[in-house]
């Protein structure tokens, strides 16, 4: 497991353990493969290490939101690059860390991963992290109405892919 070597590292490792899953999900949602997702996760936590001491977070939630937004921005930057855009979309299900799900879960996950990038973060924050629209708006630095619009369109895409009705907020 994660062994601490110094108090400083221990602090960072605590933060890492606390948020690595969320950061990884966001990164995998964008990158759709393990290697790129892990690379983006490392880059995200490196950014955290590079933050100055005077830029302390107000709370754990603030820290988590910062990590998620930073991770999504890093992934978007990666995806903007020409080489990345030219890469063939990989088979998402083959790259899943957990392939044990049944057909229904895999369909949902595949539909989520196929969402356009601009909806992914909002959908993740709303459905998984259970952020409110105002929290998402604050984290993404967007208007709340924009967030509502993103969520509505994202849900519509998922409904089209999976059928049925999604729960309203």
């Amino acid at each position, binding site marked *: 497991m994660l062994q601490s070597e110094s108090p400083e590292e221990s602090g960072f490792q605590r933060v890492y353990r606390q948020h*690595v899953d969320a950061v*990884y999900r966001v990164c995998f949602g964008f990158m759709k493969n393990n290697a790129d997702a892990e690379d983006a996760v490392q880059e995200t936590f490196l950014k955290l290490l590079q933050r100055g001491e005077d830029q302390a977070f107000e709370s754990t939630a603030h820290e988590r939101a910062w990590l998620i937004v930073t991770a999504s921005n890093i992934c978007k930057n990666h995806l903007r690059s020409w080489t990345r855009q030219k890469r063939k979309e990989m088979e998402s299900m083959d790259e899943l*860390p957990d392939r044990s799900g049944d057909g229904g879960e895999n369909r949902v996950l595949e539909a989520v991963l196929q969402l356009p990038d601009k909806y992914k973060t909002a959908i993740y924050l709303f459905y998984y992290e259970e952020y409110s629209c105002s929290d998402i708006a604050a984290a993404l630095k967007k208007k709340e109405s924009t967030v509502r619009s993103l969520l509505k369109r994202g849900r519509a895409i*998922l409904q089209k892919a999976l059928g049925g009705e*999604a729960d309203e907020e």
Partner: protein
Amino acid sequence: MKNEEIKRAWERLTPDEQAKERMLQGIMARSAAMEAQKETSAEPVVTPWYVRLRVPMGVSAAAMACVMVVTLAVGNPLLVNNGSSRQELLGTQPVSGMHTTAPVASADDAEAYAPGTEAVTAPVPVQTTFTTVSSALTETSLDHFLNEIPAVTTAESQAPSVSEVVTSPTEAVSEPSITTAASVTTLTEETEVQTTAHTEAAVTATTVTATVTQLPSLYGDMYDFNHVTWAGLSYDTVYETVPYSRLTNHLGSGVAVGDAVNGSYTILLYEIEGVPVERGFAVQYAGQREYYYFYCVE
């Protein structure tokens, strides 16, 4: 589709422990690498020798350029003493330039020229003497020396100009503020030039005795040297420039002096169109581009 389904779908995107450990090791390694890179960049960079010497080389080049400019300015024919005007100015200065006489048989004769100045007797052929003496002279005195050599060797044709030189120093000697010893010395020497030049016309083997007096440095702030004595008249300047197009005749060269400084500054004098010389003239300081109006204060 339920929200719970979406949440469970996201939950499946969880890295295993090995992946977490791998990512943490990667983060630590990259962080350490960045720290090392930061420390490396913080170390003083060893600059190559040509970069380190760039400034000294530039200074040296500038100094050499200055020396060349001054040399060229002094070597300029405009600065060569053409006779009367130079002599008059020299009479007002605390020190005199280098002068030659030919021939002089012994050092005793040379000593008679210059009380208080350094006398060099060189009973050698003209060319040899020139080479030997020139290295010890200031640029101005060398210029004067070069001018004097033809006066000795060409004899009759140069004689009038020499006598012309000798005519006016009496006025210059009368200047109270200037070292008269040097002026007298100059007169004596020039007299010798006159007398010997005539006799030397038929003589093929000549010797030259050079009396060398070090002039003060040419370098200085020209704004400290605002006074010139010319033809017995005193001129001052407030450094009002005169356009080159208004200059007519080159009056000669001389030196400017200042009240607050010792020494002198080599200058070129020019007549200004429509302005009598008795009222004023233009002066160009050696090494400078501008021409400044000097007005008569007497």
